[in-house]
């Protein structure tokens, strides 16, 4: 059936549910900006941008708390059932995923600030390019997942799972490339380790986007056990993969 959060006999219920949904989407837009900014901060080694990411992280957390509170209120006051119940449940989970994605962006920013202070070195052009590429993918995934969530479109959401496979492949390839460079030039080892962590963060952002997509499917009635955020083993890309 067409998914809609509206049409309740009690109009106020429509309002409560929509406002919860809209808040979560707005938070998502902020998180995409955070990721974009953090990737720029890293690839341009821009301390100002990194500082901005940290400042705005507080807003992300505020959204997280407010939406959680509103969801709790809605459950207490309206006792949602069926698709409404699934929606409230899923919105809360989407918000958690967004918050964690923002945390990954924060890690990028922190790396920029800490490393530029202590060592004064910046990633090489090749590494910056790899990070930009992975960052682009992470943002595309988050945007696709968020759009699917905005329109409650489970079909659109399923595209994110495909994109995640691409992300995993890109991540593994990028990792191999920086490790090769590190092996060729031992002075690069420190930078390579940092870059590996950064790439890992971006890959994680992709995972959060994929989870958001699954939560959208959950609202639509697809009871996917992995939608609970437990990552299936075949989806996991380990750093020590050959």
């Amino acid at each position: 059936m067409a998914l809609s959060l509206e049409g309740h006999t009690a109009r106020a219920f429509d309002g409560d549910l929509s406002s919860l949904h809209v808040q979560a989407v707005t938070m998502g837009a902020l998180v995409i900006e955070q990721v974009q900014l953090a990737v720029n901060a890293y690839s341009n080694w821009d301390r100002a941008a990194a500082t901005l990411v940290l400042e705005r992280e507080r807003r992300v957390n505020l959204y997280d708390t407010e939406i959680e509170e509103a969801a709790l209120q809605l459950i207490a006051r309206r006792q949602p059932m069926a698709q409404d119940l699934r929606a409230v449940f899923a919105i809360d989970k989407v918000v958690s995923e967004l918050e964690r994605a923002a945390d990954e962006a924060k890690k990028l920013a922190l790396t920029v600030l800490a490393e530029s202070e202590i060592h004064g070195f910046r990633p090489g052009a090749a590494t910056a390019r790899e990070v930009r590429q992975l960052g682009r993918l992470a943002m595309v995934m988050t945007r696709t997942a968020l759009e699917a969530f905005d329109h409650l479109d489970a079909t659109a959401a399923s595209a994110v799972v495909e994109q995640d496979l691409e992300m995993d492949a890109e991540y593994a390839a990028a990792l191999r490339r920086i490790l090769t460079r590190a092996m060729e030039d031992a002075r690069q080892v420190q930078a390579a380790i940092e870059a590996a962590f950064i790439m890992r963060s971006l890959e994680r952002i992709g995972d959060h986007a994929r989870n958001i997509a699954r939560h959208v499917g959950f609202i639509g009635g697809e009871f996917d056990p992995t939608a609970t955020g437990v990552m299936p083993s075949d989806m996991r890309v380990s750093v020590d993969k050959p």
Partner: protein
Amino acid sequence: MDTAVEVERAGINLKPSGRMPDGEVALAPIESGKTVGNIEVEDPIFRCRDVDVYYGAKHAIKKVGIDVAKSQVLAMIGPSGCGKSTFLRCLNRMNDTIEGARVEGSIMLDGKDIHDKKQDVVQLRARVGMVFQKPNPFPKSIYENVAYGPRIHGLAADRVELDEIVHSSLQRAGLWEEVKDRLQHPGTSLSGGQQQRLCIARTIAVNPEVILMDEPCSALDPIATARIEDLMEELRQSYAIVIVTHSMQQAARVSQRTAYFHLGDLIEVGETDRIFTNPRHKLTEDYITGRFG
């Protein structure tokens, strides 16, 4: 029953995920007797098939088929006038008392047709007890309220046995501790919740197999309601319970299976766990999420 068969029964096009295609169901006319979900259970106490009820010219229940399982609470929900109470009253032939009411189809209690000519209606109502919306104790003592049934059915040989039945019935209804010192007080002197539990004690005093409850908590406060709900959980170990309720939360709390009625049709039956999280029929979804009408 697998999904494909259910789909065929439902006469509608379900996607493999079990979801309804957009808009189609809402517009599709309801075909009576085509219930979504599995109406059958293993070893049922009641097996109802193609039940039609008419009040004069009004067709109140249309081709309803459903099993009632032993040791389970079956909740029947739906908007006012959907036929859930009418159907409940079919199960112990309470509709017989309504002028112009006509019941067709088969209702088998433990494999025997309750409309059989040899069926003694008084006996049937002892096997299938009923608790009503408003507590209705007899204008007699607490003791007499419970003792009345066993006495007319000859269930007690002497006063000692009768005392024992009254005691155990009140105990099982969770009322004994509150009334043991005033068994001779009038039943009507009790609070609403206590009166309802007295009516339940009265029902179980005659050893029924099934207890029908028609909105048993709608006149009670939340605390009395919680006690009755607790009691239902205990009672279902020994009896099959069928409850009609307007409170979806109550249906979700107390029942193991839920049936959704709409304008005389049984739209959907299923495990309560599923009905309230992921109903299959658009009408069920609309009703339980408050999008009705």
